[in-house]
């Protein structure tokens, strides 16, 4: 054992002396081979361009830093007040006014009369029903379509897949009513689809005549909102370990089985999050319905608009608005819960990985 330590001692001493001595004499800081050979070690985390901090937080929870100092926490609270005050002035207070006005009929006083009136009207009940079934239908459609398309992009990759994903991002940045405008040209009475039909069969008019019905709105909403489902799904799929799929298929599982047992469980949180978001957005959708321009399709947002702007019946508009807010906000709360659940799951796996690397 004595020789073991004797053997390695000079080597260790050399190591200590050489790099620093060389450095001083040549003035060439780090040995050049280090900068080349150690390149892979240079970026310890995967450095995605555009991401701020590719490295996850260090293993120690960051919570404690927020605990420092009681007076500090008061200061922090004070700093949040200015933006909240702005929000309160331009949004929360106006929202309160809407609720308040819904209890003030034009005749004056405070009563539930506007609610009774609105709830009694056939138009409101129909609008409520139309809104809900279109929203639910569109959500289901988006989920199915979005799942299938995202599945293919992620797991049956093709050369243009990246471009398609990019296109979806661009698609999301356009306003919704453009879809209705486009559908007019495609499925309108003199549009593309009917044109192809009449050209092919020689008939006087084509079979497509659904644009001014709720089905037209449904189609437009499915088209417009499907990318909102695809995006979180693609993100979830990219986190899925392909080794899992390979392992499953090497064990002889067929695609349908892999989808059901491996991919679907992984995608469920994203599906739930995307689905509930789309449901809220469909409930609130206005542009598509407005551009459809059909008297037969009235949704809650449309009713708010027509009561307020066309009829100038503000209390009624406010009542409808309150109902619409109640539905959407509660659904949105649900969405936030879903996202918080899945999000926390995601970060916990992330920090788990980090602590494994770090400690």
């Amino acid at each position, binding site marked *: *054992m004595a*020789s*073991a*330590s*004797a*053997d*390695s*001692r000079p080597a*260790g*001493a050399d*190591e*200590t002396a050489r*790099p*620093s001595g060389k*450095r001083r004499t040549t*003035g*060439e*800081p*780090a040995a050049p081979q*280090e*900068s080349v050979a*150690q*390149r892979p*070690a*240079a*970026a*310890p*985390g995967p*450095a995605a361009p555009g991401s701020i901090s590719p*490295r996850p937080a*260090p*293993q*120690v*929870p960051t*919570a*404690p*830093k927020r*605990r*420092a*100092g009681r007076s*500090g926490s008061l200061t922090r609270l004070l700093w949040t007040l200015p933006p909240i005050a702005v929000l309160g002035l331009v949004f929360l207070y106006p929202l309160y006014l809407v609720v308040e006005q819904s209890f003030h009929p034009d005749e004056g006083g405070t009563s539930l009369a506007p609610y009774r009136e609105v709830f009694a009207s056939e138009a409101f009940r129909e609008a409520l029903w139309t809104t809900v079934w279109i929203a639910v239908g569109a959500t289901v459609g988006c989920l199915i379509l979005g799942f299938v398309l995202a599945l293919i992009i992620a797991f049956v990759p093709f050369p243009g897949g990246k471009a398609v994903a990019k296109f979806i991002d661009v698609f999301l940045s356009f306003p919704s009513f453009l879809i209705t405008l486009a559908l007019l040209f495609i499925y309108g009475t003199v549009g593309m689809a009917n044109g192809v039909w009449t050209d092919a069969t020689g008939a006087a008019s084509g079979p497509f005549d659904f644009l001014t019905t709720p089905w037209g709105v449904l189609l437009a909403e499915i088209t417009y909102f499907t990318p909102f489902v695809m995006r979180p799904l693609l993100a979830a799929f990219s986190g899925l370990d392909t080794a899992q799929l390979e392992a499953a298929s090497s064990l002889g599982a067929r695609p349908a089985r892999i989808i059901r047992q491996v991919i679907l469980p992984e995608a469920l949180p994203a599906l739930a999050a995307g689905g509930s978001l789309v449901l809220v957005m469909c409930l609130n959708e206005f542009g598509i319905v407005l551009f459809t321009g059909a008297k037969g399709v009235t949704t809650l947002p449309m009713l708010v608009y027509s009561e307020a702007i066309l009829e100038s019946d503000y209390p009624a508009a406010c009542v409808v608005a309150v109902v619409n807010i109640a539905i959407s906000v509660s659904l949105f709360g649900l969405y936030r819960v879903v996202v918080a659940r899945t999000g926390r799951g995601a970060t916990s796996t992330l920090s788990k990985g980090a*602590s494994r690397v*770090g*400690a």
Partner: protein
Amino acid sequence: MSRQSAPSSGIRFERVSVAYGKRGGLGARGANGTYTALDSFDLTVEPGEVMALLGPSGSGKTTALRAVAGFVQPVSGRVLIGDRDVTALPPHRRGIGMVVQQYALFPHMRVEQNVAFGLKAQRVPRGEIAGRVAEALEMTGMAAYARRYPRELSGGQQQRVAIARALAIRPGVLLLDEPLSALDAQLRSGMLAELARLHRELPDVSILYVTHDQVEALTLADRIAVLDKARLQDCGTPQDLYRRPRTEFTASFVGNANLLPVSVGTGGVRFAGTELAVATVDVMPGADAILCVRPHLVGLGEGENTLRGTIAEVQWRGSTHRLFVDVAGHRVKADVRELRETPALGAAVALHFAAHDAVLLPAGTGQAATGPVAGETDAEAAASTPSVTAVVGAISVAKGAGGDIDG
């Protein structure tokens, strides 16, 4: 306040306890959902001393360092830097230098801007900044890279810049949080030497060095504080801890010793029916104890103390062979110089060790350490075989502390 020429100042922990909120963690979980990351921690780092905090992950060592930096607030106790109670001070007023595992260089600043950042923050006169940046970069050998961005540097180079940045503000206290663990093994030993050199050049700076790597701690530290389960387990010079560990945990975590359960007789101990001689018996006769023998001090063949068993596993580690020998149901590790012929599994062998190489520990001191942690260090030791033994030998010579510690 002139922090520029910080007088050498030590660090003192006075019964420091840190508890975290409900978020998960590895420490002991308390009744109200919090868990204690550091429990009544007492430690004094002398001015100019290098103190390593050594322990497995979750032992509280990083928490202790962050309590000095001000990133965690103790629930009780005080932290002093020099004579100053800094417990309630925000981090930016503590006058410390800190280097962390992931470097945390500002990616949007050039190397020189990174190093100058602290000087500007402390309002060092403009004319002085350039000189001090150059000085710090010179000291860490990064002067030629001043105009680069961190992303253009290798891991080792980034770490040098991080050290230069911390040193530029001339702190009295330097905190190093696993500074080498993001580097690969080869680079690590180079940086270790570099850190030792830096400390020789700056003898007044007190260094608190957090690591889970015993080799780093043994190489660099004047003293090592061993932590486990949020508590200080042991503290002493490297030689002291290595040769005369006071707890089972230290014995297994530092250097991965053989720990044999023995019963104490008068003048010797009894292990699995065999009488063994030990140099000093400071445990009550009749009590149970743990006999600690370093694997490299166990040899093949008969000797002063002989153990007989069968070979269970043999690992070839280049210059040495590690033998795992089953002795009466206990596995004894022996590191022997490379054997001409690899012994066959199941072969009967005799092992021996000298009486003065064995240390007797009272039983029941930090037993958890023999579990997975021991396995972990085993793996680490395998990765850098000759290290621990060599390092201890080397530093005993280097520091002139060699001598007869074993007494």
